C-alpha cells in the first residue's frame, strides 16, 4: 500500500505526543496532591502543638 509509512508516522506522532503529555501531567498532578496532603498534616501538627 503506497504511502502507508507516512500515514503510520503521522498517527504515531499524534498518539505518542498526546500520551506523553497526558502521562507527564497526571504524574505532576499526583505529586502536587501528595504535597498538599503533607503540608496539610504539617499545618495540623503545628496547630495542635
Amino acid at each position, binding site marked *: 500500500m*503506497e504511502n502507508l509509512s*507516512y500515514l503510520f508516522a*503521522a498517527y504515531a506522532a*499524534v498518539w505518542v505526543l498526546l500520551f506523553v503529555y497526558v502521562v507527564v501531567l497526571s504524574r505532576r498532578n499526583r505529586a*502536587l496532591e501528595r504535597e498538599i496532603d503533607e*503540608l496539610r498534616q504539617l499545618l495540623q501538627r*503545628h496547630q495542635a502543638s
Partner: protein
Amino acid sequence: MSSNRRLIDLILAPLAGLGMLLAIYMVFIYVPSDQAQGIVQRIFYFHVPLAIMTFLAFGVVAVASVMFLWQGTRFWDRLAHSAAEVGMLFCTLVLITGPIWARPVWGTWWTWDARLTTTLILWLIYAAYLMMRTVSGPGDQGARYAAILGIVGAVDIPIINRSVYWWRTIHPAVLVTREGSSGLNDPRMQATLGFCFVAFFLLFVWLVWVRNENARLRDAVEGMRQHVLTGHEA
C-alpha cells in the same frame, strides 16, 4: 481533588478517550480512501481538527487574557496558561502531520506557503508566550506581559484562516473551497471529519481541564507553603 472535580474528570476522560477511539475506527475502517491521494489523505482527518482546536485554544488564551487584565483574578490567568500549553501541543502536531502529508503529495516536506508560514509564526508567538511564563515565574507582572502577548498573537488566527483565499497558495482549502463548495464529496468523508472535530474538541476540553487542575494545585501548594512559613515565623 474534591469530589466534584473527580466527577468532572471521571466524565471528561472516558468521553475524550472513547471519542478518539471511535475517530480512529472511522478514519481507518469506515471512510473510503481518496481517489487522488490514496491512503495518505487520511492524515487530514486528524490534521484539520488539530488545526481548528489550535485556533480555539489560542482564542481561549486571548479571551482569558483580556479577562485577566480586566479583573486580575488568578482563575483567568490559569485558564490562559493552560489553554496556551494545550494549544502549543496541538499546533506542534499540526506542524508535524502537515509536512508528513505534504511529502508524498507535494514532493517536499515544507514550503514557505502562506498558510504554513503563518501557522509557524503562530507557533513561535505562543512558544514565546510559554517561555515568558516560565522565565517570569509567579507574580502578576510577568502574567500581564504574557497576557498582552496572548491577545496580540491571536491576530494571526484569522490571517491563517484567510491565507488560502488572500494569497496564491498550494495549501488545500478543504472545508470551503475557493469555489465555495466543500472539498469533500463523499458523505462518509464529511461524517468522519465532523466526528473527528467532536472527538478533538472533547480531548481539548479534557486536556485544558487537567492542565488547569495542575495550575490550581500549584497555587494551592504555594499558598500552603506560605502558610507554613508564616506559622513558623509566628
